[in-house]
């Protein structure tokens, strides 16, 4: 557990392709892209891979305005994982459209971000 987390780095957005390629060439299978918002409002991205016998991941931290490189052409299955991050965190991925899960105009925008606060569900009666 790294309390401080990785440093916020601009070129991490570009390095992600190189590191994914290394992983995929080593025979690893991408299992998830975890995004989470840290206290200071930056976004931590964790790319995890199944490289037997366990899970290997690499993580980096970016600001939400930055555009991240898509790895969908290296690992095709990453496309849905990236679209999910785009929808739920409002991040920008190069060439990835939003709208996988959320209905424009009805659903809250970027619901898993703390600011703006995620709207409560339609359970008005309480």
């Amino acid at each position, binding site marked *: 557990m790294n309390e401080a987390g990785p440093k916020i780095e601009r070129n991490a957005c570009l390095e992600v392709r190189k590191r994914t390629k290394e992983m995929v060439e080593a025979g690893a299978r991408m299992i998830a892209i975890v995004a989470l918002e840290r206290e200071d409002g930056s976004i931590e991205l964790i790319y995890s891979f199944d490289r037997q016998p366990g899970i290997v991941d690499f993580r980096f931290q970016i600001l939400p305005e930055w555009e991240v490189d898509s790895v969908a052409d290296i690992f095709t299955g990453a496309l849905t994982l990236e679209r999910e991050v785009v929808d739920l965190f409002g991040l920008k991925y190069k060439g990835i459209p939003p709208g996988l899960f959320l209905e424009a105009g009805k*659903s*809250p925008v970027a619901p898993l971000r703390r600011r703006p606060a995620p709207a*409560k*569900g*339609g*359970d*008005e*009666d309480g």
Partner: protein
Amino acid sequence: MMTLESKMRIRSPWIMHFDTGSCNGCDMEVWALLTPRYDIERFGAMNRANPKQADILLITGPVTKRCEDRLRNLYEQTPEPKLVIACGDCASTGAPFHNCYNVNGGVDKVIPVDVYVPGCACRPEVLIDALVLGLSKWREKAAGADKEAEG
């Protein structure tokens, strides 16, 4: 008085099942209704995927934002008199998903519901009960509609 047509419709209510974001638990129980153990064809009910042919809408799930318009669309396509059964806790009140941000919290927030079925997931026996209760409601509805047509 009810017309012959209405009487016959009650004898064979065709159902249409639509999932509006449930966890699949109630959907499986709806399917259990259609299959040998609970076999709902005993009551003349059949599963049709076509809203135009359906008399009863079995709706599961708390109605997600994306399903909202589809559900209303299906409801409007179903011919009158129709019956809407909200299957399960989440369709009745949205309970298990009350903290989720993308749901409407119950079918009755979108379309009128006639019968509310409790249980998470609702047992097939409860669904049979609900069908029996719903059909008695429906009889009243059909009688009223026929009277209107005559008068």
